[in-house]
Structure formats: structure tokens, C-alpha cells
């Protein structure tokens, strides 16, 4: 048998070659540099990577799409102030308020965005453009349960018993639903004592509490649950997977949350970040992102709505959606999270 021998000199050469090889990808990179963009995991991540990467490349930059939930994005940027792991963040107004308060994001220069003028003024935020509006409601499996009329129905109609799943107050989707339930059963959107009392009176509802909407989608696929609080995007994804899923607009109105891209303070490559923002609000990108499985509501005026999106919401309905008071939510959120977690754990 032939023996395998390696001299110290050969080993050194091998190590040097490996180190040189590691630098090769840099040579292949675009001259303009790279933007590291945080996006929500799952549907968003896939769609943004496939749709926006070529557009950013055309502008002379590279794009790395890094999946992270909005709360995780905040936690990671807070962990390294001045040296953020992302150039841009993707989040709703609730997290945006926290980011501004903690000096994590900066105001943008709209003159660097060619597509800025194609957004309605409501979508032209001083801290970054709105790329879509997530319309929230109730996802249900029509084979297992009737279409819910609203949140009250889920607690009072025995057809839903043991089949509804909820998340904690850390989830934006969850907290928006709870604000609506507080209006129905309490004195106003921040009367969470009424919500906690309601759950105490319906302990079967507490059995279906899980950590996140992504987790609920997995359970929905497995037939473990038949109802959960969702965005239209969640239902579009489930339908694209061939599952029986429908979206119900609550009779009290659909809570909605704009989703914005923000430039981090200390972003390593602001030019690449602007190229990414511009791509995300371009007609080319939003024409693709409005299609299944993402079905994102386009904020670019030139993009026509699909019949699928119009079934959920039309442009003229945007103003009638329910936009939560995030300042009030953020003020109370920590306490609500702790109280609800203790309630759920019994």
C-alpha cells in the first residue's frame, strides 16, 4: 500500500493555497460593494433574495439577504452599536419606534432613490420607504371550521374549541389582534386586563399558544390547528403549498402594519443600501412580489393590484384599515409579555 507522506514545506504550501482560495470570491464581487439587508425569514427571505439580488446587481452592488425577525434584528443591532451587522433593517412601526429611540437607524436622503416619487406620500417615511402593508386577519382551514366572523366568534362559537392558536405579545401579529380583542371585550385597545380575563375564562384557548406565526404555520400544515392570527402573506404562502387555507377579515376591521426598510446608523455601505431600497420599491420588483406565494401589497403607484390582493384589500381601503397605536403598545409591551407568559404557563 502506498504511504501518504506530507512534508512541512508541502503542508505550508497547501495552507497558503487554501488561504489564497478564500480570497477568490472577493474578486468576483461587484465593484460597488455589498449591502447586508435584514429581512423576515421564510417567504420574505426567499422572495427578496430571488427578486432583489439581480436588480441590486444591475445597479453595481451585491446583496446579502440575512433572515431575522424584527425583534431579533433590533437585538443584534443593539448588541453592536456603531458596528451594525446589517446595513438595512426591515420592520414595522412598532420596532421602528424602538430603533429611533435607541439611535439605531438614520434618516434617509430620498434624492438617492430613483423610485421615491412613485410612492404615495404615506409610504415616504423620513426613516425609509414603506415596501408593503401587511393586512392582518384570521387564517382558517375551511375543511375543519366555518369562516370566523371576527375575534369574538373564536371565543364564543364552540366550532373553534381546541382548534385556535395564539402567539404571545412579542409577535406583532399577536399584539395587533389582542389590541382589537381589548377593544371588543374591554374599554379600549390597551385594556389588556380584559384580554387576560377572557383567556382565564376560556382556558382551552391557552393550550394553543405558541412562540411565533412561523410555528403556527407548521402546526397548520400538520392539521394540529385550524385557526390562527395571520397576515395575508401567511395565507398566500399556505395556499401556494397546496393547503386549504382562507383569510377572514374580522368584522371589527383588519389591523394593518406598514413594513419599512431602514438604514442603520454606521451602515458599512450606504450606497449599496440605497440601491437595495430603490430596488425594493421599484416597479420591476413589486410586479414580482405581488404574485403568489408572497402576494405583497405594492406601494409603488405604477404597480397594478392582482385580483388575489384585491380580494383582501383595495388601494382605497388602505385608509380604513386599523393602524394600532405603537407608542402605546411599546410603552406597555414588556409588562403585557410577562403577564401573558405567566398566564399561559398557568
Amino acid at each position, binding site marked *: 500500500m502506498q504511504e501518504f507522506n506530507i512534508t512541512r514545506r508541502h503542508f505550508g504550501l497547501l495552507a497558503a493555497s487554501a488561504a489564497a482560495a478564500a480570497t477568490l470570491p472577493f474578486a468576483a464581487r461587484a465593484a460597488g460593494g455589498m449591502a447586508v439587508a435584514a429581512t423576515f425569514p421564510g417567504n420574505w427571505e426567499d422572495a427578496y433574495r430571488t427578486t432583489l439580488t439581480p436588480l441590486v446587481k444591475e445597479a453595481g452592488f451585491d446583496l446579502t439577504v440575512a433572515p431575522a425577525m424584527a425583534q431579533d434584528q*433590533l*437585538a443584534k443591532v443593539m448588541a453592536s452599536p456603531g458596528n451594525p451587522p446589517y446595513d438595512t433593517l426591515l420592520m414595522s412601526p412598532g420596532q421602528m419606534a424602538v430603533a429611533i429611540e435607541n439611535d439605531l437607524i438614520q434618516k434617509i436622503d430620498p434624492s438617492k432613490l430613483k423610485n421615491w416619487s412613485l410612492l404615495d406620500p404615506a409610504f415616504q417615511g423620513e426613516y425609509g420607504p414603506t415596501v408593503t402593508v401587511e393586512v392582518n386577519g384570521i387564517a382558517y382551514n375551511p375543511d375543519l371550521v366555518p369562516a370566523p366572523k371576527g375575534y369574538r366568534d373564536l371565543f364564543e362559537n364552540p366550532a373553534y374549541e381546541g382548534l385556535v392558536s395564539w402567539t404571545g405579545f*412579542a409577535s406583532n401579529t399577536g399584539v395587533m389582534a389582542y389590541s382589537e380583542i381589548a377593544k371588543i371585550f374591554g374599554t379600549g385597545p390597551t385594556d389588556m386586563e380584559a384580554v387576560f380575563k377572557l383567556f382565564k375564562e376560556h382556558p382551552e384557548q391557552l393550550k394553543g399558544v405558541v412562540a411565533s406565526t412561523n410555528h403556527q404555520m407548521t402546526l397548520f400544515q*400538520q392539521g*394540529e390547528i385550524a385557526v390562527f392570527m395571520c397576515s395575508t402573506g401567511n395565507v398566500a404562502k399556505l395556499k401556494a403549498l397546496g393547503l386549504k387555507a382562507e383569510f377572514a377579515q374580522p368584522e371589527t376591521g383588519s389591523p394593518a402594519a406598514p413594513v419599512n426598510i431602514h438604514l442603520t446608523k454606521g451602515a458599512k455601505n450606504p450606497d449599496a443600501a440605497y440601491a437595495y431600497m430603490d430596488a425594493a420599491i421599484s416597479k420591476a420588483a413589486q410586479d414580482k412580489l405581488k404574485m403568489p406565494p408572497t402576494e405583497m401589497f405594492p406601494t409603488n403607484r405604477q404597480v397594478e393590484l392582482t385580483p388575489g390582493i384585491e380580494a383582501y384589500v383595495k388601494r382605497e381601503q388602505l385608509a380604513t384599515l386599523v393602524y394600532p397605536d405603537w407608542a402605546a403598545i411599546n410603552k406597555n409591551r*414588556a409588562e403585557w*409579555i410577562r403577564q401573558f*407568559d405567566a398566564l399561559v*404557563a*398557568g
Partner: protein
Amino acid sequence: MKASGFPYVLPMLLLSVAFFATPLAVLVGFSFIGPDGPSLHNYARFLGDAFNYRVLINTAKLGMQTIASTTLLGIPIALLYWHSGKTARQVIIFLTLIPMLTSNVVRTFAWIVILGRQGPISETFVALGLAERPFTLMSTELGLVLAMCQIDLPLIILPLIAILSRTPVQFTEAAQVSGAGPWRILVTVLLPMMLPGLLAGWILVFASTSASFVTQAVIGGARNVYVPQLIYREVGTLFDWPMASAIAVVLLLSTGILLVAMTTISRHRRLVGHA
């Protein structure tokens, strides 16, 4: 003069100081940051809440339940290995190691299918007439213990196999010749012989289970809260890092005390003598 071995361990020592001791010191330091300067505020807040005590107890209980179930399953598998031929031993080792080659996340999600309403456990019970209708073990402590048991089983089997590999099978024959029955052999010969391996396995299983954030969150759901979830909540949702550090230190100390106790027992002179 005999050369000192110190230079050989120096790189490892430096790495440990840089990447373990220093971050740990930072973590401990963070835990004392209070609203008005250094204080025990976070510890007082954590220990002043009865809910947190329950979470600590639940975490320790989960570790103990997993230890008990992996022990009950691991001992027969290790004994089977001990009495098997060369090929069968290789098969057992392969089957033990193969789950470890799969990501913990993948194994956890596979358990959603197994524990669900349409999963094999529910369907078997319904088919045998032991349950009237399909049921789910998701978001239950029993479901979580079952999943943790499968995930951590190799951690107890491997130390047992290591002990038994060095032990002649003739030990049991000698006991039989002396007139001992199967149960007496198990209790007076095999278990004392395996105890150091069991203790090593228990330490690994306990440490793994009490820190298994993904499995606890996915299988246990929100109803079963354990300490790692509390830490995640403070870091990722409430952004209260000093509080998260204090909880992490409490977890480290509470599990550390249990692990030190187990290690002390495993190093006891009488037990080491059996290995």
C-alpha cells in the same frame, strides 16, 4: 530534566480565557447592572417572582425526567451491544450515532409529525381502542420528554458502551455460576459496573436538556416555559440584557450545582473502583 507540559496546553488555555472565561466574566458583570448603578436588583427581581421559581423547577424536572427515560432505554441497548458480535456491535454504534449526524432542529421538527393528531402515536392508540379520538402530544410535557429522550439517548448510550467495552462478558457468567438470578445480576453486578458511565451520561443529558432552547420552544409550546426561553425573551424581545444575564447566571449556578454533585459522586473511590 523532565520537560514541563505547560507550553503544550498554553494555546488551549489562552483560547479558553479569551473565548470562555472573558465572555463569562462580562455576562456576570452585566447581571449586576441595575437601574441606579451596580446592584443585586436583577437577582432580587428574578428571585422575587414565584413564576420564575416554577420555571427553574420545571427546567430541573425536565432534565431529571429525560435522565430517567434515557436511562431506562439506554441500559438495555448498551447491554445488547455488550452481548453482541462484531457486526451487530457496528450496527448498534451506527444506529446510535446516525441521529447525531442530523441537525437538532430537523429532529425536533420531525417530532411534530410523530406527536401530532395524525401521527403514529395517536393513530396507534386509536387503532388499539386505547383512545376514543385522535389526540396530540404537542405542547405537553410528555411529548417534550419523549422528544428529548430520543435526541439525548446517544449521550447516555455512548459512555455506557465505553465502560462495557472494557469489561469481560464472563462477569455475568461468574455471577450465574455463583447462583445469582438475572435481576440480582443486574442490580448487584451490572448496575454498579455501569454507574460511572451512567453518571457521565446523566451529566451530559441534563446539561443538554436544560439548555435545549429549540426543542423546548417548538415541542413544549408556550405553556411549558423553561429557563432558556426566559433568557431569550429578555434578550430578544424585552432587550433587558442585565436581567437576561442574571437569569443565565442563575441557570448556570443551579445546573452547575447539580452537575458538580453528580461529578463528585462519579469520582467517589468506591465507584471508580468498578470502572
